């Protein structure tokens, strides 16, 4: 949430917990500052014949907002998350089955889509679904005076002139998905991508530390 200087990228404090729900096959909760999202994964499970794909698993993503019924905004968030997950999961290992990912927004204080992506990645890892690489979400906001802010709060998002969310993969730090809003130049877009790639290092290190802590009991 801090304004980005030339070299350092600062993000809000993260927290994450895995395997907190008892009936799902995998679950995780991810907290970034005050924004918090819980994810649950079911799969590989039975699929309806109308939705089955003969050579891959069918991935369904549902985003439930904190208040009210899902609307068009949630549908577009679902599409972004689904495209990212399909790029990193090995869906061909479970043909004719379904994977369901449900994201429940517990509190929204900015950077919601990237928090959803992070929670989704940790839940998929917890469920033991085979993945070719990990992914993480980073949000950048460009303020009215041209400064790039990473992981903005809701107040900072409101005052910005452009808001971008990128999903970065762990293997080559390439961009898997991008969702942008507002007006910005090509140069600013490239700067934001570079800043997000740098921020993703911290998030991947955090994933590694949380998974290590989780397996430390059984080592």
């Amino acid at each position, binding site marked *: 949430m801090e304004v980005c200087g030339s070299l350092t990228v600062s993000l809000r404090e993260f927290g994450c917990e895995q395997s907190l729900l008892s009936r799902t096959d995998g679950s995780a909760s991810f907290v970034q500052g005050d924004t918090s999202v819980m994810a649950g994964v079911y799969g590989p499970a039975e699929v309806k014949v109308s939705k089955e794909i003969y050579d891959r698993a069918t991935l369904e993503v549902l985003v439930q907002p904190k208040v009210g019924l899902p609307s068009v905004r949630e549908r577009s968030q679902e599409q972004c998350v689904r495209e990212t997950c399909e790029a990193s999961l*090995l869906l061909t290992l479970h*043909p004719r089955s379904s994977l369901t990912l449900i994201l429940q927004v517990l509190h929204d204080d900015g950077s919601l889509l990237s928090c959803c992506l992070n929670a989704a990645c940790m839940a998929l890892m917890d469920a*033991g679904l085979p*993945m*070719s*690489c990990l992914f993480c979400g980073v949000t950048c906001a460009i303020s009215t005076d041209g400064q790039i802010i990473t992981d903005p709060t809701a107040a900072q998002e409101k005052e910005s002139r452009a808001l971008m969310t990128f999903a970065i993969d762990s293997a080559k730090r390439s961009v898997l998905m991008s969702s942008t809003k507002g007006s910005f130049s090509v140069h600013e877009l490239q700067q934001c991508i570079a800043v997000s790639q740098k921020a993703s290092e911290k998030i991947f290190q955090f994933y590694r530390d949380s998974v290590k802590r989780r*397996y430390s009991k059984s080592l």
Partner: protein
Amino acid sequence: MFSTVKERVGEVLLPGDEFSFEAEENISLTVPVKSEKVVCGPGLRRCGDRLVVCKSGVLRHKEPNVFWIDSQQRRYVPAKGESIIGIVTAKSGDVFKVDFGGSEQASLSYLAFEGATKRNRPNVQMGDLVFAQFLIANKDMEPELVCIDSSGRANGMGVFGTGGLLFRVSLGLVRRLLAPQSNIRSDLEHLFPCELVVGMNGRIWVKSASVQQTLIIANLLQSAETMTAQQRQQLFRKVQQGAF
């Protein structure tokens, strides 16, 4: 590559971690090159000339050259040769449909029981529990179960379960119970006498002398998942000393 993989045994690895062949700096012309074989188990995949991790977990090793990722999972994916507990859901023609908790139901032919012939059909009803093993289990075909082994004997498989309780646990706990020298199993032996059927699909069936004892054993096994060995032994001792 064998040495790079072996050094990381016991470490927690995440999907996307790779092992690649190192290019030898000096190739000797006199000593013949030893070919090293690495056998990949669950969680490791070969991508071209690299070995990629595809599940998060601890890297384990078994002599001489088998490596796999030990991960904690709840959902079962069928594999050939594994014995599971299934529930018979339908009888269609000559085949029973069995639900084992996977992505589709498995088929169990009525001839796949010991001593079954076309005239002598086995006594299997809907809702019965069967202990069977997979004959065919891959991602492309419908899984098939049998209740006999390759020589035609039942070997403990078949319909079971009058009374008793069936419950679900994680796959890791089931593997720990079925390991050759299992601490959990030896702790359980000192408790009360009970009959236990363990399916590799995460289902366990328990029957003991009274309903209360059955429920105690079921609760103990379900809570043993998240405990360390010491906590578990303390809990078992407490239960043993309680008056029943």
